[in-house]
């Protein structure tokens, strides 16, 4: 066990000292940090939580607290050894396909925007007629207009939603175009979910 004395230290110093102590560990161990206020205890616990370490804490006396951080895994500190021995990666294709359709503009293709609108309406209709439907449809930037009142594709999108397709529109985009009250199908999402859906897709379809 390593003891870090952070009595009398103002935030962020207790966390900085404790992080340094954890970084110096050579194997699984416990780092005990002494601090003089409860807020420092909470900040230490937040850091440990985010790093996936278990903690215990107790008040020793008035103005003296102890936080113990149990570090079980020190891969960050120790260089990984090669030749982990006979492990192969699983290359079987996923049975469950996770197709994501991304609509990033209110038109399809470049050229005459009037034509582009007609094409996009046709594309969304065609998607709704596919045997193998996408799991998710993402709408961002100009694409946000397609899920809002006044869009020519609302019926097709509602039909898709009824069949279990998740229709998600970027909230930042709705705000930007003043469309927040006009969303007519699906749910609002944010960039974190958009990024997650796209990175976890087995196939991204974007007209």
């Amino acid at each position: 066990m390593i003891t870090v004395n952070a009595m009398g230290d103002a935030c962020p110093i207790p966390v900085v000292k404790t992080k340094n102590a954890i970084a110096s560990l050579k194997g699984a161990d416990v780092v005990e940090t002494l601090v003089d206020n409860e807020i420092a205890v909470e900040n230490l616990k937040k850091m440990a939580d985010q790093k996936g370490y278990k903690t215990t804490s107790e008040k020793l006396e008035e103005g003296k607290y102890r936080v113990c951080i149990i570090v079980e895994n020190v891969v960050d500190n120790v260089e990984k050894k090669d030749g982990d021995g006979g492990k192969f990666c699983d290359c079987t294709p996923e049975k469950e396909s996770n197709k994501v359709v991304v609509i990033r503009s209110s038109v399809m293709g470049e050229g005459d925007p009037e034509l582009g609108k007609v094409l996009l309406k046709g594309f969304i209709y065609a998607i709704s007629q596919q045997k193998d439907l996408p799991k998710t449809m993402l709408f961002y930037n100009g694409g946000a207009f397609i899920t809002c009142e006044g869009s020519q594709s609302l019926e097709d999108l509602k039909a898709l939603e009824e069949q279990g397709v998740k229709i998600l529109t970027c909230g930042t985009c709705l705000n930007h175009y003043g469309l927040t009250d006009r969303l007519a199908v699906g749910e609002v999402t944010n960039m974190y979910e958009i990024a997650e859906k796209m990175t976890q897709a087995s196939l991204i379809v974007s007209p």
Partner: protein
Amino acid sequence: MTEEIVFCKGGGCTAKLGPDLLSHVLGKIPRGEKDPDLLIGYDSRDDAAVYQITEDTAIVQTLDFFPPMLEDPYLFGQIAAANALSDIYAMGGTVKTALNILCFPEKMDLNILGKIMQGGAEKVIEAGGTLAGGHSIADADVKYGLSVMGIVNPKQIYANDKGRPSDVLIFTKKLGVGLVCNANRVGQAPKGAMEEAIASMTMLNKKAAEISHRYEIHACTDVTGFGFLGHLSEMINSSISAEIDSISIPVIKGAMHCAEEFLLTAAAQRNRNHVAERVTFSKYIPFAMEELLFDPQTSGGLLFAVQKEDAAAFEKELREAGMPAAIVGRFTEKKEKDIYVN
């Protein structure tokens, strides 16, 4: 043995007493008889007191001071003054006079004192006000700020909590100065972050306030020590909740990195403890973004609730005037929680 006098021990609005502590004490203070001309006092959680003197004139009165959050006394003076002046702008007022408030160790170099006051005076002049005097105390640590008097038309006061459902929220500065100054104090601020934080803290909210008078503003506050969510929570009334689009929040370069490295302030944790139960974070919000939204700001931006139809034009005009202003969310009808962060 004489103890070394340290100029910066981590100050700015991170030095504010925690909101929990304050509410506890304020509830027990005797208020005296109610004066009908006191339009805004501490019944509401507003930024300044407003006292009506004629039909179309009211006085706005505010006071703010704190210890240094950086080593340069001249910049500290500018920042402390910009921060104190901001409360007048947050009420919709115009700055008229200011008084210095100063605590200074007798043994410290008087040139430092001169630089602090020079920085402060320059900001008062930039605000269009007059520095009319002040008061100083010999103390163990440096503290500086202003008591400011401004005027406002009582019909045009920006209250904190008069927002309406469907109002759009616009914020005029970047978040993250607390995290960056805190990291800087332990020598770990990312390159360029401190420069951006200083530029943000020394900028007056004057221009933002002037532009705002051309639009229909329903509520306004300045975001300082209680952090973005703390001050937003003070804008919530019984008929509205707020939805924040976290990806739209303007952020000081490097501030997210400071949070990812756990260079956390005590004040941010106090803010979290105070307001977290009124907030729902969507499951996708990363830890660093949560910390940013609780980060105490020194001389932070104005947060406006503007009528929906005006939002795009207001945002555009602020940006054209050189501010990193952004539409960051909106008010909705009252929901279960007061604030939703998406």
